[in-house]
């Protein structure tokens, strides 16, 4: 188990390197010149050249990348071109709200999705099944921003039940929790449908398996048969799906944060890209990709926890 996790961790290193390289190159490909942006619209070519030298942009790409990695190792992601604040500092301030939002979204949507999928699968073909499947198709079809806007309009604006702009405070305060509800419902909302559908499919698959018949032949209650012998096995593909969907979750987080003015990494990334703040944009890309890698790592380890056959491999 531990070896499996370690193995996965080592495999993540080259992936991380690739992400850094692509993130770095992306910023080179963009047609805007950071030195021009920093110098402002009225700067003379001399000033721009000076800034370029100052930023190290006149040196060969390989040297720039090497320096970039070296600074990164020291925890230095550069400073924002726009407001001269260290990128690390900005990221540090936004990462907690983003994590809050993500966990809050997954916290309710995954259990609900698994529950709905289990109910639908167990009572296949029934009215419950059809209702749940209709609901999940609707959930899959609604874009994140639209769900967010609808919630803002009705729950936030018309009925004035919950706040819908910004973060009211840290999670342990009442304001913090209240302001988190609508964004978390929005972001998690897109997750329930796919999880429910996958759980249903996987459960139906397992329920017809031989070992489920064995479990029934032992005299187990139907509840134990489903819990221990069907759902547990069905969770393996569900976890895979969740891992794959995390990419959408990160994309959804960017949209959700923008719609709700949530002070997170996603909104920071959008702002940085729109204002050509290269170091900041690079920093947010690194953090979001790291998140992706960490989540995939977690999924891999979870796999092994769920299915002993994977542990040895």
């Amino acid at each position, binding site marked *: 188990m531990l070896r499996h996790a370690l193995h996965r961790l080592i495999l993540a290193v080259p992936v991380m390197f690739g992400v850094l390289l692509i993130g770095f190159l992306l910023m080179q490909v963009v047609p805007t010149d950071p030195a021009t942006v920093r110098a402002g619209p009225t700067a003379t070519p001399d000033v721009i050249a000076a800034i370029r030298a100052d930023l190290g942009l006149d040196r060969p790409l390989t040297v720039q990348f090497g320096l970039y990695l070296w600074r990164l190792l020291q925890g230095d992601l550069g400073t924002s071109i726009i407001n001269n604040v260290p990128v690390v500092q900005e990221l540090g301030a936004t990462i907690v709200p983003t994590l809050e939002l993500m966990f809050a979204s997954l916290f309710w949507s995954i259990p609900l999705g698994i529950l709905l999928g289990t109910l639908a699968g167990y009572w296949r073909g029934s009215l419950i099944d059809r209702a749940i499947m209709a609901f999940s198709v609707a959930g899959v079809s609604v874009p994140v921003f639209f769900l967010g806007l609808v919630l803002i309009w009705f729950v936030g604006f018309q009925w004035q039940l919950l706040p819908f702009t910004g973060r009211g405070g840290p999670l342990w305060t009442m304001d913090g929790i209240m302001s988190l509800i609508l964004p978390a419902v929005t972001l998690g909302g897109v997750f329930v449908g796919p999880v429910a559908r996958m759980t249903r499919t996987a459960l139906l698959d397992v329920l017809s*398996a*031989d*070992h489920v*018949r*064995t*479990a*029934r*032949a*032992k*005299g*187990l*209650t139907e509840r*134990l048969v489903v819990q*221990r*012998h069907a759902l*547990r*096995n069905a969770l393996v593909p569900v976890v895979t799906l969740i891992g794959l969907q995390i990419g959408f979750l990160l994309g959804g987080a960017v949209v959700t944060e923008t719609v709700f003015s949530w002070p997170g990494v996603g909104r920071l990334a959008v702002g940085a890209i729109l204002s050509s703040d290269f170091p900041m944009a690079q920093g947010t890309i690194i953090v979001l990709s790291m998140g992706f890698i960490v989540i995939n790592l977690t999924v891999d380890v979870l796999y092994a926890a*769920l*299915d*002993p*056959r994977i542990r040895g491999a």
Partner: protein
Amino acid sequence: MSATNDGLLSIEGLRTVFRTHGGEIAAVDGVDLSVPRGRTLGIVGESGCGKSVLSLSVMRLIAHPGRVAAGRVMLDGRDLVQLPAGEMRDVRGSQVAMIFQEPMTSLNPVHTVGFQITEAMRAHDARASAAELRERAIEALNRVRIPAPERRFDEYPHQLSGGMRQRVMIAMALACRPKLLIADEPTTALDVTVQAQILDLLRDLQQETGMSIILITHDLGVVAEMADEVAVMYAGRVVERAPAGALFNDPMHPYTLGLLGSVPRLDEERESLLAIDGSVPPPFALPRGCRFHPRCPFATAECRTEQPPLREIVSGHSAACLRAPVEAFAA
């Protein structure tokens, strides 16, 4: 017609149907059987003859859209067909246990061997402590001759060979000391040498525990080795029932004759093996009259219209054939 009452299990007029778009079809159609205590009943037939459906009907594990439509399954004086679901669940595993054809897929890959065995025990004995269950499970593994049972207890099914898994299945089935073990093709998926070991094991365990066994197989060799009495099934019905010796020496139903003719033997010289022409009719396209008549070389006009009942021809030996016993069969 009705089976004797001195046995442990008696099946009377059992009929199991499946609902399809074309109406209800009967996979098991009016079967009478009985199993005496401590003895083995072999049920033989080609695939599709209804033998597995019969065994699942006894366990009441027929899944939707199937159901037991008529008949009784009397176990120790209780009719399992009429039992409330909760009581039937108590019967499963503790009174009647079952092992299946595929040991590779019949165990849950995500739980340890030990967990799956103790789970069966816990289902029928909620008071036992974890340590006690572990001890009993290791004892059960020991009983099915699994080497190093303490180590196997914590292993997963994928770490065991096919033969070992079938032993685990047997240990699990016998964990609660059932009175009846239904073994549905227990050796079909195994290597020949392992088959013999498993059959030996089942016979030894039967002697130790005094349980009855229903052995379902298409392999006449397995039946010859294991069964005290044999029932031959064809298209959802029992066509012949006899003590094992009598069935093999003096088969009375043309179908049984055909089955025996298609088994290679070492002690007889034969040009070629006999094969029964055609195949088992599917339950939705059964012929009128005797269900075997389209494939029967001895069929007469009467066989096409009249369904022969299972009747005793000599003491203890019954056949469902209008023409049995016919001297011509032997020729």
